[in-house]
């Protein structure tokens, strides 16, 4: 779904929740007159289960879209091995191959990206513009952060991940 220039993606979990409560409401309203009398607020409430994730995704996607040019201008291209704890807060660009993808169904994908020098976790807190899969060669723009904010190994808080070559 596209709102303005922003491609909005709803996670499968949000859709599953919406479908679950829709079915629940259907059964409940068929079997209970009390529920039917409350439909005036239950139906909008049900739609909010879809509208809120869509709105949140739209807002985060728009914000990320605004940040992309800033990172493209400021980020330095580095090999993964050069990324270390001392670089926390620095915008970086890395190129590599995607070795693993997690949590894509939550719209919070985490990638393991590797180049010849090493590998690093790339965390994204919204859905990416492109559907990135294992073995895709990608360029990543993001900021170096610690895995658990104050502690942990350095990872990339991804602002943009793009495929740069067909596999």
């Amino acid at each position: 779904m596209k709102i303005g220039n922003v491609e909005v993606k709803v996670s499968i979990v949000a859709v599953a929740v919406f479908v679950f409560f829709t079915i629940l409401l259907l059964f409940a309203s068929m079997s209970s007159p009390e529920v039917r009398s409350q439909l005036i607020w239950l139906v909008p409430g049900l739609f909010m289960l879809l509208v809120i994730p869509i709105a949140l995704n739209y807002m985060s996607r728009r914000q990320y879209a605004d940040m992309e040019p800033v990172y493209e201008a400021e980020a330095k291209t580095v090999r993964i091995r050069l990324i270390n704890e001392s670089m926390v807060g620095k915008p970086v660009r890395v190129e590599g191959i995607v070795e693993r993808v997690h949590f894509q169904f939550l719209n919070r994908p985490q990638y393991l990206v590797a180049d010849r020098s090493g590998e690093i976790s790339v965390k994204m807190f919204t859905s990416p513009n492109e559907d990135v899969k294992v073995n895709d060669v990608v360029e990543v723009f993001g900021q170096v952060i610690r895995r658990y904010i104050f502690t942990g190994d350095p990872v990339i808080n991804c602002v943009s991940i793009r495929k740069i070559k067909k596999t």
Partner: protein
Amino acid sequence: MAEISEKDHPQNSLNSVLEISVPLFSFGGAFIAILFQMQGISIDFHIPALGCVLASCFLAYLAWIRPKKDIVALTTPIYSFIFFTVPVDVSEGILLQILYAVSLTILLIRLKYRFGKPGTAVTLGKELGGTLKIYIDRTRNAFTDINPKTAHSAAVVFVRFAEGNYGEAEQGAKAVLTQEDASDQQNTLMRAMSIIREHAMLLNMSLPRPVTYQTFPKKDLGLLAISPDPAQDADAEFYLSLDNALLILFSAAWNASERDRQHLLACQVFAQKLISSK
């Protein structure tokens, strides 16, 4: 004096005691509660539950001292506080304690097998260790006599490079190269500085590897941390020169500028990463 083996180190002994204490305290608390209940003595549920609270704190400590953190184990004291401060019946409380003790034991096993060994002074950045220390010791004689000002500059350039401040690293390297005498331009440290300057400039401008680039000559092989493979391609040779140059700066700064050691220790993980590269 004989060195204390890793196994006999007081810190490791304490860790072993704490590891045993996790199931001991958590199950022990439940066991005491069962004993009292069997005797028909009524005690406050919170007293035996303290065993689980303490066990959670031990587990969180064991998670904290590992370089790789387990967020689940780290947060167990919070759960213990929530579980054991709310009022529950004695029989329910015992069941809850047993289940919690089982969970803590599973988390302890998980911590031991998936999150590595507890951090040492090396991994925690308090002293040098591993192959980096071996390299620093091997190259000590070559760098102890260098000018302390140059050694300090080497530390600054290394730290700036590690921080990703490539512009500053380039300027720092340039300043050293322009200050030193012409004769010094021939030594290994100056060549390392020159290589770092070239790489810092390229990184600062996000430029790719140039067709011609600086490398170490054969006469410097003895001072390099990683020996180049004759069969390696140009990319590998280019990046290996940088890794070796950075490690030369680290060694020179460590051996000739004692006041910068704390800053260098803070970047030790980065240096270890470089030296472990192939």
